């Protein structure tokens, strides 16, 4: 249990962070010998960044392709983001964050719980929809491999155990909070023994360990990939001070 409670979380976090940084660096350190602009964006670097951001915030390419996929994919990503923010805020403020907006102590805890429940449910339903589509739509099923299911199943484990924790009399959220806050400041607090929490915690660690070796690297890969498509085309005649066209993420790496 010592390993599980006090070593694994740090190891998993380290694998996740180092893995993602290395992976991303691995892409960005490669040159872009030939631009693959699909369409050039008027305006400078900022306009291109805005074009990439729009795609990554709203997923318009999914919207144009398949509305249902768009809805479930967008909800899945958006609710995950809210869940992550919720965890951070909830743990940092011990669910008292809404008191800053004038709520009473009890109301803040209630609101925090209700929002967590709602967003958690949305996340779970979205994951289930995406999983169903993967298994039921022949065309998607054909292109899916074991790893595509694995990523979804891991996320579902995280989501379902997290939701269930809210209903378990056994789980003491205050105790969980103390433990997690302790991890963050490197001060050991007792590991809660409620099994639902242990399942949730194990699933999160497994996910972090798996992340940098899987397709989930699209977390940063999406920025790299989309930015390649809006790279400005070269200018002719070549300006006296050298090529002006540069990818979003680096400059002057073309011969």
């Amino acid at each position, binding site marked *: 249990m010592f390993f599980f409670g006090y070593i694994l979380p740090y190891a998993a976090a380290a694998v996740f962070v180092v893995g993602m940084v290395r*992976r991303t660096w*691995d*892409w*960005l350190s*490669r*040159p*872009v*010998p*030939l*631009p*693959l*602009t*699909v*369409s*050039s964006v008027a305006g400078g670097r900022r306009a291109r960044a805005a074009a990439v951001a729009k*795609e*990554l915030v709203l*997923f318009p*390419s*999914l919207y*144009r*392709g*398949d509305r249902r*996929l768009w809805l479930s*994919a967008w909800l899945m990503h958006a609710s995950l983001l809210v869940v992550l923010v919720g965890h951070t805020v909830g743990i940092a403020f011990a669910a008292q964050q809404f008191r800053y907006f004038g709520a009473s102590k009890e109301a803040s805890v209630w609101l925090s719980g209700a929002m967590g429940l709602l967003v958690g449910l949305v996340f779970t339903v979205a994951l289930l929809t995406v999983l169903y589509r993967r298994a039921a*739509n022949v*065309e*998607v099923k*054909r*292109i*899916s*491999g*074991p*790893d*595509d299911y*694995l990523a979804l199943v891991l996320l579902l484990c995280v989501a379902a155990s997290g939701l269930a924790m809210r209903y378990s009399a056994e789980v003491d959220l205050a105790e969980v909070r103390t433990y997690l806050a302790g991890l963050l400041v490197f001060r050991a607090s007792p590991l809660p023994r409620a099994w639902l929490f242990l399942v949730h915690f194990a699933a999160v660690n497994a996910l972090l360990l798996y992340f940098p*070796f*899987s*397709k989930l*690297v*699209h977390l940063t*890969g*999406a920025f*790299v*990939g*989309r*930015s*390649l*498509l809006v790279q400005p*085309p*070269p200018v*002719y*005649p*070549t300006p006296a001070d*050298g*090529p002006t*066209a540069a*990818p979003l993420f680096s400059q002057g790496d*073309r*011969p």
Partner: protein
Amino acid sequence: MKSPMRLAKAEDVRAIGLAPAAEEERKPRLLAKLKELRGSMRSLAVMLDTCVKCGNCVRQCHSYLGTGDPLNAPPARADLMRKLYRRHFTLAGRLLGRITGAEDFDAQTLDAWLTYFYQCNECRRCAVFCPLGVDTAEVTIAGRHLLSELGMVPRFMQQVALNLQKTGNNMGIPKPALLDSVEFLQCEMLEETGLAVKIPVDQAGSEILYIPSSADFFTNVDTIIGVAKMFHALGASWTISSAVLEAANFGLLFNDSAMRAHNRRMRQAAEELGAELVLQGECGHGWRAARLCTEAASGPVRFRLMHVLDYTARNLGRLALRRLSMRVALHDPCNYARAGDLIDEPRRILRACVEELVELAPNREETFCCGGGSGILMDEMMEIRLKLGKKKAEQIQAAGRIDYLAAGCSICKAQLPHVAAHYGMPDLAIGGVMDLVGKAMDMNRSTGGV
């Protein structure tokens, strides 16, 4: 399924400067080259890693829709390379194998690559629909290049490359034959307009070097006639070069060094003639190669580089055009719409030249490929070509009665008549955009424009 596409023989491959690999050498060479290529291309590196198999691109690929072959679905196509990459170059793939989609090289690998990388028209429609920006064409272009590094090149591409080496054009037209057909075209134009409209060849000191598609001297003569008339009307100082009579650059579609070599031909000709502006003729992928690759292949350069449709659109006000009474549909060639930024220009030109312009749906950035894209024009591929053209045919049918289909790209012009005939539109007139400019121009009023 094995592709009917014929490959070039080993000695022919050597003739274009590539080194065929012996059977046992194939796997190690492929892996070494893949590693090298991935190292030198950010696009390939990120695209091999990030596809999440969401499937959004699957039904956007005309190749999959037309052939119904599951391996023509973009992510499945890219997986043909991805599984090898996973197996050899990722930790997870080496440790866990198939669970991560990793698979090793086997007896089928190269056949599958040849079949499915050459049933991708490099049209990039999938990229427009991928939320992560995965451009399957980038993967298949890399795949075709790797095949060429093993000496596996379609006979068709090898012949084009050989012709380019010898004559600077795909069709292998030598200079005397070129002069003959220029003479013939000038006579035609004299007869039609009563004016001495010239097609200058190798004229040093010209401001503009025009790079036509070599097919313009055989099958698409109306395109070059339209261009010549426009230059005449504008009083432009222009020339074509017998050394680079080819806007197409097939190297982009099968071998990177061949692409660079042809690109340098353009630069050399422009410098020798002292041209200040290089104008690319009606060729889709050729425009992509010129516009996006010149800097890397031949740069830095001192000339401006433009497409003839852009040039024409900018000069519309100086041309006396009378609208032809025709109902014309516009086909957006993939490489104009998804690499070339030539979307509004052909529309502006056509609106000035014809009475009615109809749009195919979908169009612009979402245009469907004609099915011949990336030089899949081999006769032995005809059956597959017709399947690849199915989506385009449906679009044309849906447009109702049209008098002319404007397709400003030589590959489209070579492919679409087969598609039209096969799908019950044998009488459809198909040609370039500049063809109509030539026909709509009132030469007497335009003359002396400048």
